[in-house]
């Protein structure tokens, strides 16, 4: 009824190829962005710091993984480690060049993660599928080991952890323990929105199509002139870059301090679950998945006591884990393509409403 594209004629290919060809979608995304901008007016510090900020950062990490697994079809179990590379390089950069703006460091730190990604992506030229999972596991455990053993990475701190110093951006403190939730939120929001847009562009262009060619039918892709080396390694590089930036942001804007255990395989799995539940090969799904996995346990922690269920905090965590595990299986059975596909089906139904088919 209100979601119908009748009458919206496209007269140029440019108009037909825009990200949101349907006017209602453009309005919708505009409303969401405005709401996101206005959120700090109504949200408490807890909502910003414990929900909104990590949600956005993890959504970005999920997008990073989605580039590799969802778009280029290379299964990765090493996301956590690549995020760690970003975080540790950012920490080193910030402490070595304290005068340079922290945002520059955050964006640069992804480059180191990309380099690590390319190195561990090299075997993907010979190895496929599950076998590749071993490569990424090697990356995960090897890099984790580096974070523990190479004390230069954490400036020889006795604690073995990295602690984020306070840094300003346009005169406002955005990192460190004293930074307020609102300023951190806006910086995170800006980075995530801009990077999502750039990646969306990449995916709907030549490079993105190459990734999907490799994913869907690698032999046909090669016979059509795609160099597997270039396509796969570029996917590893871009994916790890995004994950690295997300990792740096995770520490600098959310945690404030981090020890190597943060970037363990648990984080890799968490991000993988976000990608699966959201829908592999979908950017909007990455946001759905991150929201789902991150917010569900928090809702349960807040919600269950409110409902009069009296359980310990750690039990809530365990129950949440069970629920997430069960939901993953449920989703795979009901809709293997995740929330994004449900969303797409919903929109298709709306377009032809009140009829069941077009």
């Amino acid at each position, binding site marked *: 009824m209100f979601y119908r594209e009748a009458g919206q004629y496209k007269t140029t290919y440019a108009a037909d190829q825009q990200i949101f060809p349907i006017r209602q979608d453009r309005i919708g995304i505009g409303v969401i962005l405005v709401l996101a901008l206005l959120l700090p007016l109504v949200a408490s510090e807890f909502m910003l710091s414990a929900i909104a900020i990590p949600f956005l950062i993890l959504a970005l990490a999920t997008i990073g993984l989605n580039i590799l697994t969802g778009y280029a079809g290379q*299964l990765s179990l090493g996301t956590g480690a690549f995020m760690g590379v970003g975080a540790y390089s950012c920490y080193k950069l910030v402490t070595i060049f304290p005068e340079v703006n922290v945002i520059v460091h955050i964006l640069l730190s992804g480059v180191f993660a990309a380099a690590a990604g390319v190195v561990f992506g090299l*075997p993907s030229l*010979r*190895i496929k*599928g*599950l*076998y590749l*999972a*071993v*490569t990424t*596991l*090697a990356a995960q*455990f*090897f890099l*984790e*080991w580096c974070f*523990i*053993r190479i004390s230069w990475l954490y400036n020889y701190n006795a604690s073995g952890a990295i602690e984020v110093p306070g840094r300003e951006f346009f005169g406002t403190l955005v990192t460190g323990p004293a930074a307020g939730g609102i300023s951190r939120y806006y910086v995170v929001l800006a980075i995530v929105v801009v990077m999502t847009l750039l990646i969306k562009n990449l995916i709907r262009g030549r490079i993105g199509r190459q990734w999907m060619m490799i994913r869907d039918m690698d*032999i*046909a892709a090669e*016979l059509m002139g795609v160099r597997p080396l270039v396509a796969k390694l570029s996917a590893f590089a871009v994916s790890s870059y995004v994950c690295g930036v997300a990792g740096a942001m995770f520490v600098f804007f959310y945690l404030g301090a981090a020890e190597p255990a943060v970037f363990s*395989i648990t984080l890799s*799995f968490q991000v*993988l*679950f976000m990608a*699966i539940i959201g829908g592999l090969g979908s950017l909007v799904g990455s946001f759905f998945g991150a929201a789902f996995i991150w917010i569900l346990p928090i809702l349960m922690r807040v919600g269950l006591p409110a409902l009069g269920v009296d359980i310990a905090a*750690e*039990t809530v965590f*365990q*129950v*949440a*884990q*069970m*629920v*997430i*595990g*069960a*939901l*993953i*299986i449920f989703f*795979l*059975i009901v809709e*293997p393509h995740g929330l994004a596909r449900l969303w797409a089906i919903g929109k298709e139904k709306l377009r032809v409403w009140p009829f069941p088919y077009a």
Partner: protein
Amino acid sequence: MDMLYNILIDPFVQMVDAPDFLIQVVWEGFVAGVLYALIALGFVLIYKASGVFNFAQGIMVVFAGLSLVGLHQKGVPAWLALILAIGIMAILAVCIEKFVMRPLVGQPDIILLMATIGMTYFLIGLGEVIFGGEPKQMITSELGLPTGSTAFEMGERGLVILQHIDIAAAVIALLMVGGLAVFFNRTRIGRALRAVADDHTAALSVGISLNQIWAIVWFAAGIVALATGIMWGARSDVSFALEIVALKALPVLILGGFTSIPGAIIGGLIIGIGEKVGEIYWGGLVGGGIESWLAYVIALVFLLFRPQGLFGEKIIERI
């Protein structure tokens, strides 16, 4: 030069100088390898019968071990706890078949893999809710397993100490492999199982019940998991940390091939011995602790030269 000496020559000098220590290290690696192999065996069983890469095998090991110890702590006698634990694995197998495998039949491998990752998450949560998160001591002596050790003198050159429980682990692993080989090759169910592994639809069309076969296979994997859990628990504790260790089955399988039972054993031993020897003789050069990733790197290097695994045939790509 020093560096090269430390990497290329010194470790071997050490090995020759102290053969008793080397044998001890290799033995430790061997036992660890047996346990990797047992976990890998669980993977292979399920992979053979349903083409599913069962990520949850590790947590099944933990779960089985926890059930056994947990029941005993509640006052159940050891023998009864063992029987009940087997019962729990049977129930688990039936549930997995009914709620996960059956609805997902025919889906791409990657979806099934992810389903087992979901299962892992669920079982970790469930295990912690029921049994609590803290590590537990395995009831080794209550189960009648040997706990002592024997020292072998090597003349002038020192002595090697073998834990009886380790020997028991090796023997049990051997019996299990033998039993599975007989089960696969000599029984009616085994034949049905191989048929299912080859082609689900074809197996169905000749009257084999997929559901029944899968439940049986998952149950068999559960028994293997229980044995692994007991043996592993006896060496360290029963804890959820084991779940990460179980990931090492992946490099083991890559060496040995996903469908080969002897491959799983040999792969397990290579990885187990390789990482122990590597850690002891080379790990010190980079600060130690390389055991956490050496297995994966061994598998990775190996894959680069033989992408099809140790026993696999050369892959000819077709279009």
